[in-house]
């Protein structure tokens, strides 16, 4: 491969949050035919405990290396992942768990790629890994180095989709 990877890292810019949001909305709209909006958690009665967010499901991750080191992740419930896969590949295909994981991995890959394409200093100097998809929610991610995170919660038909950009600082 003839791409030179610069070693000087670019620090995470808080303004990238809107770029990540734009990149994600574009990908979901074009590839899954759905318009994501900001997710607003349901209102909680005064004094009541907020309902625990339904976890489980799938987390797709794509590593980033070069001037920006870290990863992009997308996490949602299994039901949401199946509905997304159905929109991308059809109802029949989405009955296959491998297709659901494949769809989540591709969405994450495209969000990461679209995000870095929008930031000039990253486009040619940041490489993406192939996607990895984790099923279940009983895990903790620990970075080897201090990290910074941009988090988005977007609404897909009433269900949250959590998108993060995690970078080594």
């Amino acid at each position, binding site marked *: 491969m003839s*791409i030179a990877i610069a070693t000087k890292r670019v620090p995470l810019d808080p303004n990238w949050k809107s770029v990540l949001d734009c990149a994600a909305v574009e990908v979901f709209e074009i*590839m899954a035919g759905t318009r994501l909006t900001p997710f607003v958690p349901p209102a909680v009665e005064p004094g009541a405990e907020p309902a625990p967010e339904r976890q489980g499901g799938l987390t797709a991750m794509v590593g980033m290396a070069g001037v920006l080191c870290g990863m992009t992740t997308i996490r949602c419930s299994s039901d949401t992942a199946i509905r997304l896969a159905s929109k991308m*590949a059809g109802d029949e295909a989405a009955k296959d768990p491998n297709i659901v994981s494949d769809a989540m991995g591709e969405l994450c*890959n*495209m969000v990461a*790629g679209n995000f870095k*394409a929008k930031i000039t200093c990253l*486009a*040619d100097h940041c490489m993406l890994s192939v996607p990895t998809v984790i099923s279940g929610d009983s895990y903790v991610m620990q970075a080897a180095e201090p990290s910074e995170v941009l988090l988005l919660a977007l609404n897909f038909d009433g269900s949250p989709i959590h998108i993060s950009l995690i970078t080594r600082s």
Partner: protein
Amino acid sequence: MRKLKILIVDDSAVMRKIVERALRQAGLDIGEVLEASNGAEALVEVQKGSLDIILSDINMPVMDGLEFLKSLPAIEAAKGVPVIMITTEGSEARVVEALSAGAKGYLRKPFTPEQVKERVSPLLVGVL
């Protein structure tokens, strides 16, 4: 009028379906669609001959899209078959490398059916 025979190369089954759907939505008269999940599988399909166009992802395991592209000139059946590369990354360098290696165009994910038509149709003049 004969229908198009197309090869779609991508390690993601979902993306292969999306590419095929985009081609159909673009109004192309598609007959047979062959699929391969990496460059090595694609080379086997290419050797069978009679393809009208190939759309290939770049990042794939086993044999990536650029290596696949660079292997095509050695295959008689690939002569004259246009190849469009599909990339997730916004890397100009990879696009330039693909075009230098003989690709006739590229598509960046995410892509619309209109963008697919814009890239593919000019390469099929004389076929359709």
